[in-house]
């Protein structure tokens, strides 16, 4: 049975002012119109007794669909190919999946609302680029309230592509090479850096990776 993984590259793009520039760049690169994104992310952690090590799982609810559409997402640690690449496994699931994980012993660690847009296109791999801002929900499941932005003024840019064991290396290469097109904009939007200074893409990405994903935005209680 073929396993399906997604390679995920998190880049940080700072200041909302540059989102439009990024959107124009992506429209040119991808050649497809954007799709709007509004996702409720419930981040669960295993209870203290479960498993020899703690584990985390994300339950995503796509709020753009007429009926809530659920996905289970597991994000792995840094990959052996590149510290910038992580493996992600996803599964669509029916509506009782959140209750299932609660009954299995997982607890809600924090909730995020992710709002932005996405481009899906083919370039050496089936690539998805999302540009979104995350905000932390202050009240349980309150996705409509005004919430606290996790990184005020900063958007997260994620690049993902599905891969199997057979084509993993090729897909990782396609994702990495696409990301190089975004490097100019990352530089452009890095806060506090004048346009005259050009950090290398790797250095910029490495410094950004330390802030990627939800690792640094954990809260223990909702």
């Amino acid at each position, binding site marked *: 049975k073929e396993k399906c993984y997604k390679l995920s590259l998190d880049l940080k793009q700072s200041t909302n002012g540059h989102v439009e520039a990024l959107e124009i760049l992506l429209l040119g690169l991808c050649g497809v119109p954007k799709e709007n994104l509004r996702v409720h992310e419930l981040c669960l952690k295993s209870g203290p*007794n*479960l498993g020899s090590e703690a584990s985390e799982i994300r339950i995503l609810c796509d709020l753009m669909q007429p009926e809530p559409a659920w996905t*289970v997402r597991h994000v792995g640690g840094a990959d052996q190919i590149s510290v910038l690449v992580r493996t992600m496994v996803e599964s669509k699931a029916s509506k009782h999946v959140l209750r299932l994980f609660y009954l299995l012993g997982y607890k809600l660690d924090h909730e995020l609302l992710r709002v932005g847009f996405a481009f899906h296109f083919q370039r050496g791999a089936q690539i998805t680029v999302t540009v979104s801002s995350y905000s932390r929900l202050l009240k349980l499941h309150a996705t409509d309230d005004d919430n606290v932005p996790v990184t005020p003024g900063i958007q997260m840019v994620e690049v993902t592509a599905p891969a199997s064991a057979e084509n993993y290396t090729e897909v990782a290469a396609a994702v990495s090479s696409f990301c190089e097109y975004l490097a100019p904009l990352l530089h452009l939007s890095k806060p506090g850096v004048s346009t005259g200074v050009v950090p290398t893409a790797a250095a910029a990405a490495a410094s950004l990776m330390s802030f990627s994903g939800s690792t640094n935005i954990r809260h223990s209680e909702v």
Partner: protein
Amino acid sequence: MPIKWVLHWQPNAGHTVNSQILAEVSQCVESINGVKEGKWKATLSFYRPLLKDQSNAAEFPRDFLGISLPEQPNKYYFVLRGHRLVVEADSTIQTIMEKLQSYKTRVALNFEGFQYQLGDFQLRVGKVVSIQSESLRGIVMEMEYKPSSSWEKSHKIMGEFFDIWQEALSKRQLPGHFVHMEPNFGEYGLSGQYTLQHTAVQYATLMLQMIATAQSVRN
């Protein structure tokens, strides 16, 4: 999705299941003009929590099952019978469970055999075999009525067909009979329109019965 009843073999007190009974059941299907079509297979796995401290084991579900069905090889079904919970997911959920390392699959069972066409009905006869030991643990049958996907509306015709089948089989005087257990699908949040989630719930329900039977035989 067409209605399906999942039946399991209930041996008479003091008897167990064996391959001779399986052969007789298959022959009986053919004797009522069932046309053999091909093979089928479903799998069922028991998931057990990995715990640091066994004394808290009661906090965690003891009836967590994972089921794969031949109609949708890209899907996987989880059932927590005690909580009347069923979830349909992509089969990648199995990879996710492996990566989480919080639950491990222990016993896994295969339900496999041949399927037969009989007018508007499709019958499947299957042996229940443990993946580890290959020993025969039971016999199941699936009775599918293709024209209808409504559980209520098809109930009468399914009951009549089931009676015909039981009567044909009784002539062979086997030490047992097939049982149909009807779960309360509403408790699982399922509607009267039949889906593979309904099938997963039927398998989970009959599993409980088979375990209870096996335990009473041991006692």
